[in-house]
């Protein structure tokens, strides 16, 4: 009986240790890979960290898209109608990327304050506005009429 109890104790201690390690690693991995969401105003106010992957949301400013003539590099400005951020992207833009429409850009801020994009997301629905963007625009009172957040 004693041996059995001892064995059970070893199992329990072992399991607890394993779970602790697993939880620790998981939380570490989670912390290291969380992408926070920022609006152009927050970035302009210096709230966003440099050199960390984050998400930027807003509307692509009209007439701000410029392309290099010999490569795929493209720059555009993302605005919340209060402040804007210059975004640089060296890849193919998604089908639904348009000036005047909501986007979410995943990338990092460089030291010059330019946003280097790794991925640009434009939703697969013409009337769709990413909820974060809609909320941010609502906060600044600039939500355009007719664009329903999620419909």
């Amino acid at each position, binding site marked *: 009986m004693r041996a059995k109890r001892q064995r059970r104790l070893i199992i329990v201690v072992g399991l607890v240790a394993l779970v602790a390690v697993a939880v620790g690693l998981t939380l570490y*991995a989670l912390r290291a890979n969380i992408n926070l969401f920022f609006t152009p105003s927050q970035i302009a106010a210096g709230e966003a960290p440099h050199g960390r992957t984050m998400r930027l949301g807003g509307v692509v400013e009209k007439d701000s898209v410029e392309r290099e003539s010999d490569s795929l590099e493209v720059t555009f400005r993302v605005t919340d109608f209060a402040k804007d951020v210059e975004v640089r992207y060296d890849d*193919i833009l998604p089908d639904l990327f348009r000036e005047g429409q909501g986007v979410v850009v995943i990338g990092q801020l460089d030291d010059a304050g330019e946003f280097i994009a790794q991925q640009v997301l434009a939703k697969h629905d013409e009337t769709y506005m990413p909820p974060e963007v809609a909320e941010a625009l609502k906060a600044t009172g600039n939500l355009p009429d007719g664009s329903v957040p999620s419909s």
Partner: protein
Amino acid sequence: MLIRILPELGHFALILALAMAVLQAIVPLWGAATRRPLWMAFAQPMAWGQFLFLVLAYLSLTASFALDDFSVAYVANNSNSLLPWYYKLSAVWGSHEGSVLLWVLILSGWSFAVSLFSQRLPRDMLARVLGVMGWISSGFLLFILLTSNPFERLLPNVPTDGADLNPLLQDFGLIVHPPMLYMGYVGFSVVFAFAMAALLGGRLDAAWTRWARPWTNVAWAFLTVGIALGSWWAYYELGWGGWWFWDPVENASLLPWLAGTALIHSLAVTEKRGTFKNWTVLLAIFTFSLSLLGTFLVRSGVLTSVHAFANDPSRGTFILALLGVTVGLSLAIFALRAPRVQSLAGFGWLSRDSLLLINNILLVVMTVTVLLGTIYPLLLDALGLGKISVGPPYFNALFVPLTALLCLFMGLGPLARWKRMPGRELARRLGGAAIVAVVVAAVLPLLYGGSFSLGVTLGLLLALWLALSLARDIFDKARRGRFDKTRRGRPDRSRRGRLGGLKKLTLAYWGMVVGHLGLAVTIVGVAMVSHYNVERNVRLAPGQSVEVGGYQFAMTDFRERRGPNYTADTATIEVTRPGRASFTMQPEKRFYVASGMPMTDVALRPGLFSDLYVALGERLDNGDWSLRIQLKPFVRWLWLGALMMAAGGILAVIDRRYRRMPRRSAALRTHESIPPGTGAREGIS
């Protein structure tokens, strides 16, 4: 005349189905509790009637699509008179209302199947199983009727034409993906119902697991195929060449799959050995709850994802309430009814039992990590703590090592015996396989890619380890048959020639082999395509060419064409490679007229060992086009492996053991449930 009121008839059929579901939920359970045969007998006709009326409702919605009845709001939002007929039929589940209808239809289909194929179940067991399924069905039918009625009319201002089906969904992959996925999701309701019925009936012996196993395997196989189809669809339809994005909606389908994988293994232990009883019941509850959670995540609009099925909040609240009630009630019943006496059958540190336990722990840990990464952002958002997202690196960092660990034990499992396995014997039988796997995995990448890559080596190592250990097992069994655990438990030493043992292997065994090999194949695909993927984004004008990965891509022609409901810019790209015949690929950029949406139509040149992938990007200022050109080695293996896993699950079901079920279940009813020699002892009375 009848045609004009089809939507109303469908609506009416839904209400009748709800009435029957409610009866099915209450009467048989009450009858089982009070031992009234007549009341218990209520379950089957109600399940049949419910199925019948849901089929009618479904058909009338389909007819509304086929007849372009744009006075029905759902049709107007998701169809168009120009839509080809086959997409009109699949548009029925193209959006929220219709897909929930499909969900319930499939649920009642499963109930119908249970009532047909489980006629030999003890009467009260069948009544309870169908009763539990009636509860689930009532919940979802209420959900449809209260929040998402697909038959709502747009009167009197009927639109002249519909808004068209989302172009992303106008595709073969999406015709089949949702039904498969739902067959899986909803199929787990059967094992859930069996577990609940066993708890309610107080008969938590091994019997219920034997009845529930075939159903669980089939549901799991469907879910596997559904996930693979979703991945395949994303690969060629989204136009980025990715096959898994750790997108919350994908995770929503992976969660029940992981839990379900654990479940089919723990069901095996419970059936064979009579252990893990409580654990299996808990897993059944969790698996189905995760299916519901998946439905909630996809259908409630709480997610930001490529799928973006967004909806009004009352629906989310309703499904969340359903989820809460299901989890709460089932756990409460579990707490009240779970057997307190533990099973007495023990097992050694190294045995098939202990390896399956490790398998279960690892799979549950994987489920929890994916669950955490998926709902953590939602929780923070709900609590007003900020908007975050969890990137793919999180999932990869945890999933890859966990899979590696899982595969390590998976190689041992099939060779180990129940109860106790001497470590020395295991090492003797598998030492060779381990050495060969290590050597080949280290050398192969050098031969293939010319450079060493840790990821590829790890992937190949795991795949080879799985395959070789299975091969060793088959070899041993074929030669001697001595390691074959015949169901009598008697070693058979009679000489039958070199391969005599092969004949004795059961279909269930082959199902395991095929399923495990499927995982190996998928792992090879993942490792190869992740590390040897060649990807270039280029500018190209007609007449120019570019070289990618040894292939020469020349744009020879560019023209516009008209499809049934879209216009398209089509590029013709001639692909040449020294010493091989050239061929052409035609990627398109489509513009769907009714919805005004542009779409990328990828050109693919599939191959068993490599895919060529060309997608048109956008027209640049000077008339050039941006092009996404990719070489995807072994990408097909991903889905091939998944299909093998599903086939394995099905093979195991058609094993003779289950076809002989009626007689066995008769024996089980009189509590002679344990075949002699398996060493299992019943822990509860």
